[in-house]
């Protein structure tokens, strides 16, 4: 039945489409965009279908090629991965629509076809990371998405992008090496690579130093991939130099999937009991996460480039998600999951606005954006709305996730950390306000084409819908919690 094959289709179809794009694009460049868009739309529909089935019928397993685990690779989707899958496909669709006009200005025309092929490959890798049930398969998908990301960053017209991509490649490869070592240690100890089986077998060897080493290697590897402070050094350059459409995907989809993988490793493969009894690391994560929140926000305030400002803000926001992992109780993790979705939506919107400003004015320097609200009212309004969500003003999604995070922290008695979290929100006010002030309140605009349309519809529609989504998701947060609650319960119960 086709119904049962959905899990493999969501990976196989885009692989075929990547080939099709290469073939048709060689014939005529205009074919690339519709093929990419149709594929991503199709994947999005599948992800919603899967989410619906998972919520109502429970975990779905698929054995690739009919090989049963532990020999074969298993694809698993449970409420947690279903939620992440739907989130990343939504953002992938939005940035897919957004990409066409944006890359016309930001990458050389002869790189259009490779851009779409790589874009598709990036999505394949990230989707694969989300639904795989095999820890080595996870590594392979990480590398597929990473290699695509290195190349995508280098498609930019800005010449520094090559150095940014190279630095990212070196750090990313060290991270991949750490992950590979961790996987090797786990395999030596248990003799299996299947995640479900590992969760059952590993507890008997929790006292071994091999397992401790594996745990540390995996945490460090995934922290580099997720740009968790102080391992974020590749991020600002990569986000700033990449074409805007790529930045949107990197900051929303890729960062979130790396965090997802970290959650998976720490909570599903290793259990919360391991982190509390055998290897007390939650306090360390909590401490670093709070430092990340503050340091990311302070660095963001110091920037003069809008994209770089938003990149450092990402470092701060990843801190919020890791904060949930440090507290590791029901409420905080619900907040963390909510923040994964919320941050993806609002940061996607903010980077898209930065992209449309580059499309219109050719610059991303804050000082040259004076009075921009007069020529670009919709974009600036969207920025204000998403920025309000970033700060955490009710009733936006950003407020709801921080509310749950604070509740969780208070429940565990970490009230000092809760206070730091709120201070982080205040710092967010400062860096969001810098743009708002320049765009709205700093006199006459320097740009004299007020009569022109603000930008192409294919860019404005994703921006407006994501901005409105920040609001709607916050208002209808109860419907979301119905998906998130069972996901967190499953995580804390051990998969």
């Amino acid at each position, binding site marked *: 039945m086709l119904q049962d094959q959905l899990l493999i289709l969501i990976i196989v179809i885009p692989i075929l489409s990547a080939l099709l794009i290469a073939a048709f694009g060689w014939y005529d460049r205009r074919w690339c965009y519709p093929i990419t868009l149709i594929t991503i739309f199709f994947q999005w529909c599948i992800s919603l279908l899967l989410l619906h089935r998972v919520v109502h019928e429970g975990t779905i397993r698929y054995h690739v090629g009919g090989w049963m685990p532990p020999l074969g690779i298993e694809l698993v989707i449970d409420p947690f991965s279903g939620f992440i899958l739907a989130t990343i496909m939504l953002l992938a669709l939005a940035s897919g629509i957004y990409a066409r006009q944006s890359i016309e200005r930001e990458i050389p025309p002869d790189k259009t076809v490779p851009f779409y092929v790589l874009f598709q490959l990036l999505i394949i890798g990230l989707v694969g990371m989300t639904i795989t049930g095999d820890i080595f398969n996870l590594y392979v998908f990480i590398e597929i998405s990473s290699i695509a990301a290195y190349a995508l960053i280098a498609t930019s017209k800005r010449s520094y992008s*090559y150095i940014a991509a190279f630095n990212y490649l070196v750090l990313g490869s060290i991270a991949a090496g750490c992950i590979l070592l961790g996987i*090797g240690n786990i395999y030596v100890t248990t003799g299996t690579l299947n995640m479900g089986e590992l969760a059952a077998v590993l507890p008997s060897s929790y006292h071994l130093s091999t397992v401790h080493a594996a745990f540390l290697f995996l945490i460090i590897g995934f922290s580099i991939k997720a740009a968790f402070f102080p391992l974020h050094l590749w991020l600002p350059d990569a986000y700033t130099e990449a074409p805007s459409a790529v930045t949107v995907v990197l900051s929303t989809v890729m960062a979130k999937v790396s965090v997802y993988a970290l959650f998976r490793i720490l909570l599903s493969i290793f259990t919360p009991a391991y982190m509390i009894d055998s290897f007390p690391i939650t306090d360390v994560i909590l401490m670093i996460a709070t430092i990340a929140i503050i340091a990311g926000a302070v660095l963001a305030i110091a920037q003069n480039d809008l994209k770089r400002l938003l990149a450092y803000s990402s470092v701060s926001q990843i801190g919020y998600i890791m904060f949930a992992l440090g507290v590791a109780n029901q409420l905080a993790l619900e907040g963390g999951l909510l923040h994964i979705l919320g941050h993806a939506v609002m940061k996607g919107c903010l980077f898209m606005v930065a992209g449309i400003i580059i499309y219109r004015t050719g610059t991303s320097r804050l000082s040259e954006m004076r009075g921009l609200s007069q020529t670009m009212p919709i974009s600036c309004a969207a920025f204000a709305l998403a920025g309000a969500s970033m700060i955490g003003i009710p009733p936006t999604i950003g407020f709801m996730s921080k509310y749950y995070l604070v509740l969780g922290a208070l429940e565990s008695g970490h009230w000092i950390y809760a206070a730091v979290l709120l201070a982080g929100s205040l710092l967010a006010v400062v860096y969001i306000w810098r743009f708002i002030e320049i765009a709205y309140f700093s006199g006459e605009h320097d740009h004299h084409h007020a009569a022109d349309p603000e930008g192409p519809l294919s860019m404005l529609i994703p921006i407006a819908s994501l901005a409105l989504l920040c609001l709607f998701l916050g208002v209808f947060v109860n419907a979301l919690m119905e998906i998130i609650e069972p996901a967190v319960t499953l995580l804390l119960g051990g998969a």
Partner: protein
Amino acid sequence: MIEGFQEIFFSRYNYWMAILLMLIGLYALIAKQNLVKKIIGLNIFQTAIFLLYISISEVRGGTAPIYLPEEGTLYVNPLPHVLILTAIVVGVSITAVALSLIIKIYEIYGTIDYDELMTVVRGR
């Protein structure tokens, strides 16, 4: 003391060699200024991990994992070999991407020395 050293070093020398290679690779990656040498360091780092995997799959007295009809044949564990085959492919692709980036950097800036590169970038 000597026996303890033998126990730790000689019976597990494959691990020590892997650690040594890994550190050499990391050193080259961090300390070398030439971008190509950095990538060579990265390759040494990856190779160390590959060798570690291969060495742990060894079964003393085992043969190649080919199915033979007679009973009781001892096999080397084939799974790490398969995993590393995949990892080698990944490593080669990363090296290819890295080298092509270096070519582009050389075309634009005329140098592949990291310090010089940074001065050129700041000078622009």
